[in-house]
């Protein structure tokens, strides 16, 4: 649902025949994504606050919820499946995974080694 208002089409200097020509549909995808992301967030919070599961189970569950959250963001908001022109977003995505992996795995490694060394 890109409205033309935020995109500056000044590039080609061509006059569109009718600026309001793009057809409006109700943004079901975005509503669904919004609800899902809220559900996933509060599910993670609930798991931690309720302390009903053992620690390892909680950690595994919130990691799973985080991955689901990632998929919701990528598929429902970030138009992963749509593309015009070269697949630049694939490169960015690969770099994104690299950074995410480095941060998560790196932090876990650093903090666990630190606690093992110091404690």
């Amino acid at each position, binding site marked *: 649902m890109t409205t*033309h*208002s*935020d*995109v*500056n*089409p*000044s*590039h*080609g*200097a*061509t*006059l569109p025949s009718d600026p309001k020509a793009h057809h409006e549909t109700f943004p079901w995808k975005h509503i669904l994504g919004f609800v899902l992301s809220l559900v996933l967030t509060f599910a993670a919070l609930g798991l931690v606050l309720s302390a009903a599961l053992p620690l390892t189970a909680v950690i595994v569950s919130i990691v799973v919820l985080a991955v689901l959250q990632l998929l919701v963001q990528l598929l429902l908001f970030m138009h992963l499946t749509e593309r015009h022109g070269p697949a*630049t977003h694939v490169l*960015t995505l690969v*770099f*994104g995974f*690299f*950074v995410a992996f*480095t*941060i998560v795995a*790196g*932090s876990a*490694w*650093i*903090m666990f*080694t*630190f606690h*093992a*060394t*110091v404690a």
Partner: protein
Amino acid sequence: MLPHYFNHLFVTGTDIYIADVLIILTSLGIVGVLTYFKKWKWLWREWLTTVDHKKIGIMYIIAATAMFFRGGMDGLMMRTQLAVPNNHFLGAEHYDQVFTTHGTIMILFMAMPYLIGLINVAMPLQIGARDVAFPYLNAISFWTFFFGAMLFNLSFVIGGSPDAGWTSYAPLAGPTFDPGPGENYYLFGLNLAGIGTLASGINFLVTIIKMRAPGMKLMDMPMFTWSTLITSILIIFAFPVLTVALSLLTFDRLFGSHIFSMTHGGMPMMWVNLFWIWGHPEVYIVILPAFGILSEVISTFSGKKLFGYSAMVGSMVAIAFLSFTVWVHHFFTMGAGPAVNSFFGVSTMLIAIPTGVKVFNWIFTMYRGKIRFTTAMLWALAFIPTFVVGGMTGVMLAVAPADYQYHNSYFLIAHFHYTLIGGTVFGVFAGLYYWWPKMFGFKLNERLGRWNFWTFIISFNVTFLPMFLLGLMGMTRRMYTYPPGLGWSHLNMIETVGAFGQAIGMMFLAVNIVWSIKYGERDVTGDAWDGRALEWSTTSPAPEYNFAHVPVVYGRDAFWDMKYGKNREKYQVKAKPYRPIHMPNNSGRPFLMSLAFFISFWGFVFKWYLVGGLGLAAVFVFMYLRSFEYDTDHYISVEEIEHTEAAAGRL
């Protein structure tokens, strides 16, 4: 009941009173001048509401210059305090505040906005675009940065400055050890400015990917545009980590959570970890655009194309990758053990390789070139050896066992000032002198420029070279005074003299700007330096629409090619008739929305949740209004284009 620090809302102390008086006088002066010359409407219509990337860039540069003077004053205060042993110019607490604001302001409110400003000015012109991809968002970026910086600076006179260092390490910066609003100012000011930075990163990335002139392939882009592309990617991936870390510490301070506390299962070292996951890419965010500026300046003033173009691009990509894998070198002494420290030590040393490639490429660009020693080129030439000193001492610091000796000593202080001043600031100065005619239509004076350059570079080395020695002699950073008899006194005095010398150097820049506004050489050609990239093909300053015809590009160094190259004839196509140009409308909302953010966050700093909530509500009102705004763009008519082009003598 009012919070206990309500009674201490206004900070007391002689220097604060002086600051109060100066702030009031300056504000009255600005209001007076604007009213006397009837410029309020002009200010609102031409600047505060603008979405033009060139004007936004200029506003970034003005704000960054103001912050440079503020951060510089902090530096001078520190150097005055340390000039002699057992000095009582500043107390310990006050000194803590001054080094905290010095570091934070110089990195986030001076270096970054200077570079983002120059990117705004030059990058869209270099790729032949008429604006950035999201001009309205660009205005939001600027105003959130601006009000974030203002919020941070407000702490000086209202409530008290943050005092836990620019790194704001937990648990020191937590609510237990650091009550009061100071650290809240840090957290909210940085988060507000961070919104703008992240939006800028996205904006520049989309602009470069989507809006290059027809024919310009990625590998045809000027090197400054390449550096912007890589920097944008770093911003997009690094800044969210800072946002998360700041927000978590905010929860600790405002709502009593225990994420980074010493007790109740908090992990203070996790703050250090998160801070540097952002912090290391951040130092490349502030150096890569400077590398880009350097590449443009050296190539232009050597009259040669850039040596090793693809190696330059490749090394920047390598630096971007590696910059996310080195962050532990900021806290080897945390003690995560030999495996962790060795890994991050080696990855840090690896960065020296692509950086070295770039240094050699700049040198080979100059080799057999016809070098013109303009002020911009002088800054670029000074950059290379200074940055090499900074870089090599960085590799020394990367040796983890040795770092246990250097860590947080003046050796480190000297190292990062050699990279951040010798790299970023020299690069910014080169960029300012280089793009000044493109921004304002006149050149800065070369003679005053050389005074500016030589005073600053000599004083810079006088200030920071002795710091290496002091560090090796055991002086640690952030100490507010020291006893005599340690052999530190002479070197400290020399450094203080150098610091004031740098201030004099900056005065030459100020004088140069004022002098050149009146007498500076006017640039009527648009091509002030016999330039190579497309920004020099339009008028100086560029018209609102940048290019009457969007240029078609046939390869690298497009404008050079247009003037002297083998594709000269292809560029000589008959001018098509003008067509109306589609441009975005100005809007006051980015300014007002950021003002609402400012008021809201100021409320949160003092835990006045009513003010905070009302401010946020106003922010949402502005977002709502924007969502249903349809009249967002307009066309510049052919007559107006003809009029503008004729006035510039280009018809």
